[in-house]
């Protein structure tokens, strides 16, 4: 028997009562995105997020068949790509999407640098973004080993050897990564754990923090756009986030999906040959493209620089470079609060040129 005291529900009222959708609608109605000549670059953050979502979905599907042991890893991936219905597509999309996600994250980072979007009060947004990029690279490094093929096995050997070159903690760090003295079954299990549990957990938390910070501070307008409109006695025009920007972002996601599908279907990701730990390392072994620049730089450094080991000098250099880059929002303004515009642009151009040139040299030489 229904209670006579309960008022009848209005349409949509049931969800409204429980979730408070009006607040979300109000938030979306007020959220805006600046419109200027470089609004295009705002889409790359969303594209990176979209590709991350693809990674999570395809990765979950791959988990249904993948087996993380040296005896079965390669065979299970081979089974996925040859026997499982659309398994080849899922695996290929997962691999291509990982690479496109890192590319998109790099574009996002450099657009933030050149548009000065890291300025006060967005320092924490920059730091969380850089940490997310680091996590994306860690995803790439750990996932690379999982098919247990020759190239991935030896690339992991080289990568973990580099970690071992770090003074004091290097040996223990390499042991921790490998789960022993050399790359083997323990490394595979460990990398699998990092790839499907540890890294996704940390990434999800950091991603939520990054998005919350973006929401809190809103989209940054470049200084020159603000000045340009101020001279006209106006403020930078804004576009409503929902639905105007959101629908445009959706279009960008569809475009990304088209590129991803085309790459996956026309150039399915190779499986290669099963890793043989007793075989000699094949000639021309090299890491994924996003590690090529440091890899090639380390190759160029002589075995000894003065009294120091060359590899150690290289790693120390990369460490300092990374630290300097992470601290960008803090050195981009002087003590009087004046922006060091030329320094930032110069640093961005030099870093971009270095990454592009050395990655190309590492690939072709």
């Amino acid at each position, binding site marked *: 028997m229904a209670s006579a005291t309960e008022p009848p529900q209005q349409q949509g009222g049931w969800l409204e009562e429980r979730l408070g959708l009006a607040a979300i609608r109000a938030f979306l109605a007020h959220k805006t995105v600046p419109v200027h000549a470089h609004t295009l670059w705002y889409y790359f953050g969303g594209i990176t997020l979209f590709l991350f979502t693809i990674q999570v979905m395809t990765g979950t599907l791959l988990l249904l068949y993948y087996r993380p042991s040296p005896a079965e890893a390669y065979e299970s991936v*081979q089974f996925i*790509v*040859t026997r499982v219905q659309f398994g*080849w*597509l899922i695996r290929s999309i997962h691999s291509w999407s990982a690479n496109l996600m890192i590319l998109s994250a790099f574009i996002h980072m450099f657009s933030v640098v050149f548009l000065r979007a890291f300025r006060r009060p967005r320092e924490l947004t920059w730091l969380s973004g850089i940490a997310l990029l680091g996590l994306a690279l860690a995803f790439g490094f750990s996932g690379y080993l999982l098919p247990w093929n020759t190239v991935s096995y030896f690339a992991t050997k080289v990568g973990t050897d580099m970690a071992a070159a770090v003074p004091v903690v290097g040996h223990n760090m390499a042991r921790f990564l490998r789960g022993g003295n050399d790359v083997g079954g323990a490394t595979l299990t460990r990398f699998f754990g990092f790839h499907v549990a540890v890294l996704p957990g940390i990434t999800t938390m950091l991603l939520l923090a990054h998005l919350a910070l973006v929401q809190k501070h809103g989209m940054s307008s470049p200084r020159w756009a603000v000045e340009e409109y101020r001279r006209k006695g106006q403020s930078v025009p804004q576009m409503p986030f929902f*639905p*105007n920007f959101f*629908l*445009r972002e*959706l*279009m960008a996601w*569809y*475009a990304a*999906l*088209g590129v991803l*599908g*085309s790459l996956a*279907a*026309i*150039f*399915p*990701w*190779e*499986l290669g*040959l099963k890793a043989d730990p007793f075989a000699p390392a094949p000639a021309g072994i090299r890491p994924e493209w996003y590690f090529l620049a440091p890899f090639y730089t380390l190759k160029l450094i002589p075995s000894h620089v003065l009294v120091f080991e060359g590899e150690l000098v290289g790693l120390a250099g990369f460490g300092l470079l990374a630290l300097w880059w992470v601290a960008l929002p803090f050195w981009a303004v002087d003590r009087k609060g004046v922006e060091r515009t030329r320094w930032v642009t110069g640093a961005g151009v030099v870093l971009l040129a270095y990454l592009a040139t050395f990655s190309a040299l590492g690939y072709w030489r």
Partner: protein
Amino acid sequence: MRYGVLAFLFAVPLAAADSCVDCHSVLEGKLQAPAKAFANDIHARFGFSCADCHGGNRNETDPEAAMSKARGFVGKIPRTAVPERCAHCHSDASLMEKYKPRQRVDQMAQYRTSVHGKRLASGDTKVATCIDCHSVHDIREVKDPLSPVHPLRLPETCSRCHSDKTHMASYKLPTDQFANYRKSVHWEALAKRGDLSAPSCASCHGNHGAQPPEVGSVAAVCGTCHVMMEDLYKKSPHQPVFAAMGAAGCVVCHSNHEIRPPSVGMLAGPNAVCSQCHDATSAGGIAAAEMARQITSLEKALARSDQVLANAQQSGMEVSEALLRQREGREDLVKAAVAVHAFQAAAVQKPVKEGLTIAAETYQTGVSALQERTHRRLGLLASLIAIALTMLGLWLAIRSIEGRTAKTSQLTER
């Protein structure tokens, strides 16, 4: 560092103890050469000195005393005495055990049975003795790539005499062995692929007991590596016939030094070795043609599969299992080539049939992979059309929304 200083302090007096090396090092020309070369000699490494072969006393600083005949100094050792001089140590099992426990000590016994040894015993000093192959004063271990008897250098070492027409004239031996060997599959394996186990002169002729294999033992010599071929040949109708003819088994078809890669062309065609004895219409000729036909059919089938699988692989299709099966098919091809040595078409038929089954299966896999590639691309095209239409829909929706917003703004302004 500490050990380095100690080594230096002790090394100087030890080096100074060998007066032969000390004096000959400061001489000139051929009197100096042995002392210089001896630094790289394996014997020097183990502490032996010139005096151990040449006699005399290494500890005497006075040349007269050091090279005193009373102390057994012989100077240049006559060629006829060289093998015995080397054997003095190398045939002494208890001495060799101290330096090279796994090394054989029967070299001298073998050398005596060799053509070289027999001729030397009869006073022919032109034949090879130990030092002609192993060098003298800078003798290195066989595994040392600079040693003249290292597997990669041995054929050239033998050829120094055996390709020398003047040297060989008195023996009435041919001098084209090395030139022919350099055209053979064995040379290709040894020199081009760096396979140190590939046969060279000593593998067939022996090293210290060197002599040419007799007609009756050629198959046994080849059979040390080509076991299955030898086994089939021994049971084949050719074996008693060749034996009766005094023909040297394997050499009849494959030659001796110039052993070319075997091919179907040896069975049938204008250069077929079978046709040298068998008429095309004879039972032997028909069997040879049939074997050639079967092997050719398998070769063609495997090549066809290779091509379609390569196409599929280049398109990114996963066909590694089929490529592994192709290897099994190639093994059947090798088995068929081995079975030829039974000289019966039926023997070749079994591996060919198995190989053809594999080739048909892998070809089908390749064709299916290429069909799958087409399906994928059609699927991609359909997906891209759907994506493009959705994007178009979104763009129209954006235009519609922004058009409405613009109109509302204009009305508000009025």
